[in-house]
């Protein structure tokens, strides 16, 4: 074997070992690298409910109640389990029923999540308002982009 090839094999081998090592480390950290927990995970006791954590999911339609300018109540669901959330503060522009959100805060004794930060999750769909409108009323123009979430994968 030429020394040049030996060098190449050493480098490629080294990189392969490094990749496997980092994948193992990342796998071990899997739970700690999670940005938020789903309601199903929270209710199954997989979230650190004694400290502050984040819960993520869709804002359930018809549950958003704004009592005054700042206080808002809504339910976060992953279409399997759901958790009621109370938040006092300014909501991001993208916050609306049916959209993904990530709330940071803690659970109180009654199982209600008291959020001190609410972030909107973008659904990675981009379309003009007219198209979105025609999707809501299918008898109008023909839709080219599917925006109805059949299932929600957190």
């Amino acid at each position: 074997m030429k020394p040049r090839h030996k060098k190449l094999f050493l480098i490629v081998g080294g990189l392969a070992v490094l990749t496997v090592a980092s994948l193992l480390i990342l796998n071990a950290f899997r739970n700690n690298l999670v940005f938020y927990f789903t309601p199903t995970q929270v209710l199954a006791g997989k979230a650190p409910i004694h400290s502050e954590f984040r819960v993520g999911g869709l804002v359930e339609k018809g549950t958003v109640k704004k009592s005054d300018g700042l206080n808002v109540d809504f339910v976060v669901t992953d279409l399997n389990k759901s958790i009621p959330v109370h938040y006092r503060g300014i909501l991001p522009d993208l916050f609306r029923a049916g959209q993904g959100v990530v709330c940071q805060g803690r659970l109180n004794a009654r199982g209600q999540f008291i959020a001190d930060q609410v972030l909107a999750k973008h659904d990675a769909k981009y379309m003009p308002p007219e198209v979105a409108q025609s999707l809501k009323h299918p008898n109008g123009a023909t839709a080219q982009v599917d925006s109805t979430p059949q299932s929600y994968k957190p």
Partner: protein
Amino acid sequence: MYKYASPKNFYALAGRLIPWLGAVTLLLFIAGLYLGLYVAPPDYQQGDSYRIMFIHVPSAWMSMFVYMMMAGGGLVGLVWNIKLADMLATASAPIGASLTLSALVTGSLWGRPTWGTYWVWDARLTSELILFFLYMGFIALQAAIDDPRRSARAGAVLALVGVVNIPIIHFSVVWWNTLHQPASIGSLGKIVSPSIYPSMLHPLLIMSVAFFLFYFTVLLIRMRGEILARERHTGWVAEIVRATPEIRGTHP
């Protein structure tokens, strides 16, 4: 092929290519920005703020591509001792670092109105920030070593180790729950039906090609500079200096 691997011939070839590449890049930038900022409709949820993706998405793609070019150049330089490959790696680093910074800053400006925050420590944002630090580490390491051969080797090893981060950036939105949304285009199923409306997708694709060619244009300009700096003691560079009146004065 081997003819152009010599710095002297590459210098001449790059000099002929740069004006053409630069002109096409400029035209694509004008077309992409015009279509993206004037022709494309506002988004149904984000209004006009989504338009930042015409800069953000190509920056982010290229930040990873340039890193692969840098690491690839480092590998070829390390194994086959090709000086031009070392120069490619060295010349790529500042371009990649700028593109990474551009992706981070534009993403942050978009995140504030859309998500409600400038920054979160989710896996996608954090791994992209690590990419920026890798670029900075590469630049600092190479600048700290005077001998060009040792400098190239040290940089190449660092760049190759950092390659591990590239799949992590790409798959972070798939592997973990992140605030950053998953890719709208790119996977096989999404080529057939991308979740971006066509009049918004076309400027994005044009801007991506523009960023791609921009990288190669700047790369060739920077590599020509590298070549002149490293070959400054050779006869052919002295010839260029003699033939160029403007620089003769500064190099007595």
